[in-house]
């Protein structure tokens, strides 16, 4: 009787947690309630973790004198608590300290950890349980595969975003063929595991499947260009959710199934939304090898011969100070240079002089949708000064100066004019229609997509080379004096 009460409390707690996740997600998609949504989801997680501590699932079952006995193993309980404290403390410190600019790779890292957990849980369950059904074994094989792919895929995405490895697509001959063979091999191994059901050969097959899936995850993400990483992380995020749901099927744990499926579904939908914002199809992202090396090199070679106009801080300051309408276009370069405060200062000085200053935010400026909004909000840029692409694009014609700070691909007119360009068709900010264009940039290096930008050779464009924060600070001083 008492045991039944315990089960009921645990099951009801899982239900409460699921409801909290549902409301959490609902609120997370509305700006005014998003923060509360995240807190609700965190509360749901706390409820679920506490319920698991109470549940009989944590007990070790063994046979003593012909009777089956279940009891807590104190060592295991202690290890669980130590593990949660270590993992929780390290990641909380990391999450607190990380720069706003590095948020995308942080999300990738945490996602990879979730994927690894799902894979380890699947493998552990297979090695531990005896006499499990084929449905459960199929879930184990799938969970191991998807969790592992998500783990190594996220690590590669993390390294690309950190620029520890090149953001350019890394390709080698017959890559797709090898990946396809590897994938078919993994599926075949899964079938073998399900057919064998148990025994040493089944275990060995699952270990090989584990290793092969780890390799596949890395191989699939390596050839994808850095500019597509947001979509890749969204896909991997959704995969980890799916892997979590699969472990829930094996453990008959409905909290895992519901939360995992919610993330799997919303993550897939979010992937489509993001891909649409960048005008890329998901298949194209995964198998297209964006900005393949030969095309980029060719464009770079012809581009170097074209003339550019370089300007000085003082000249740029005068152009800005005597303009009526200025639109600032921030990009990833602004984020890298931590120039969000400097750019707000410049806007303040210009506003004091009566200049109308607005910010044009491309949906995928930075490394993730919404990245720029977060950074500029951190620098207290007023919300009403930020304009989304659709609201400001027709206004560039009436703009005296467009100041492009570290943005490149999102202002490249090739997306509109050049059908042969890899980014052709991507919606861009119509900066080229402004009367004057000042581009603040570190060097002539091409953008994340690795494509030449016509805008820099436009006769209306002047280039100001240097670190965004330094140059903006100098511009503030020069504008005050102008």
């Amino acid at each position, binding site marked *: 009787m008492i045991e039944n009460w315990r089960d009921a409390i645990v099951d009801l707690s899982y239900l409460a947690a699921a409801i909290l996740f549902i409301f959490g997600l609902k609120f997370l998609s509305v700006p005014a309630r998003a923060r509360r949504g995240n807190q609700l989801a965190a509360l749901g997680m706390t409820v679920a973790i506490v319920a698991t501590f109470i549940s009989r699932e944590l007990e070790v079952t063994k046979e003593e004198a012909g009777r089956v006995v279940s009891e807590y193993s104190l060592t295991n309980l202690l290890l669980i608590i130590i593990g949660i404290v270590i993992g929780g403390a390290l990641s*909380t410190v990391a999450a607190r300290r990380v720069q706003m600019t590095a948020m995308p790779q942080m999300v990738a890292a945490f996602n990879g950890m979730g994927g690894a*957990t799902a894979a380890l849980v699947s493998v552990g369950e297979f090695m531990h349980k005896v006499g499990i*059904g084929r449905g459960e074994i199929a879930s184990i094989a799938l969970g191991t595969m998807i969790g592992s792919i998500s783990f190594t895929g996220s690590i590669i995405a993390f390294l690309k975003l950190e620029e520890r490895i090149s953001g350019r697509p890394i390709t080698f001959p017959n890559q797709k063929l090898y990946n396809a063979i590897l994938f078919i091999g993994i599926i075949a191994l899964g079938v073998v595991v399900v057919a064998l059901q148990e025994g040493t050969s089944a275990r060995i097959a699952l270990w090989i499947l584990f290793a092969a899936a780890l390799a596949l995850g890395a191989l699939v993400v390596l050839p994808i260009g850095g500019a597509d990483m947001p979509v890749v992380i969204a896909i991997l995020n959704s995969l980890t959710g799916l892997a979590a749901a699969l472990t829930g099927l094996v453990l008959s744990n409905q909290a895992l199934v*519901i939360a995992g499926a919610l993330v799997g*579904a919303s993550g897939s939908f979010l992937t489509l939304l993001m891909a649409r914002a960048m005008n890329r199809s998901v298949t194209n992202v995964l198998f297209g090898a964006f900005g393949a090396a030969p095309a980029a090199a060719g464009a770079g070679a012809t581009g170097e011969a074209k003339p550019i106009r370089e300007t000085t801080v003082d000249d740029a300051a005068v152009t800005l100070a005597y303009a009526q309408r200025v639109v600032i276009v921030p990009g990833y370069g602004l984020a890298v240079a931590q120039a969000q405060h400097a750019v707000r200062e410049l806007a303040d000085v210009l506003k004091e002089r009566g200049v109308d200053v607005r910010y044009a935010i491309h949906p995928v400026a930075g490394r993730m949708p*919404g990245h720029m909004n977060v950074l500029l909000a951190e620098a207290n840029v007023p919300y009403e000064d930020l304009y989304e692409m659709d609201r400001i694009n027709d206004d560039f014609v009436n703009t005296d100066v467009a100041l492009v700070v570290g943005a490149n691909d999102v202002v490249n007119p090739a997306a509109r004019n050049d059908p042969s360009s890899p980014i052709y068709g991507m919606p861009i900010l119509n900066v080229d229609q402004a009367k004057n264009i000042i581009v603040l940039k570190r060097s002539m290096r091409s953008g994340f997509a690795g494509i030449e930008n016509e805008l820099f050779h436009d006769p209306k464009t002047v280039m100001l080379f240097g670190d965004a924060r330094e140059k903006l600070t100098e511009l503030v001083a020069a504008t005050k004096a102008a």
Partner: protein
Amino acid sequence: MDQDVLMGIYVFLLAIFLGVELIGRVPSTLHTPLMSGTNAIHGIVLLGAMIILGQADAWWLRVIGFLAVILGAANVFGGFVVTDRMLEMFRARRPAAGAGQKQ
């Protein structure tokens, strides 16, 4: 045993539909925080890691379980903290935005 799996698949499919419905109208500004929030929610897999470690009866299972608990906990805690930091920014400027719209 397989009866449980079928029940799980049943719940799974219903949750899939719900997941898409829930975030159907999210504005692009919230794409990153939403992704980060769902990223924290799949940290629920920590429960699975706790169960593996709780039931472990061999040293190597303890190693797998312990590793899984650390990684799962990192996913949960880090995920929620990072998301909260992103959304903190939204809250700070909300009054200003509201005032701007009224004028």
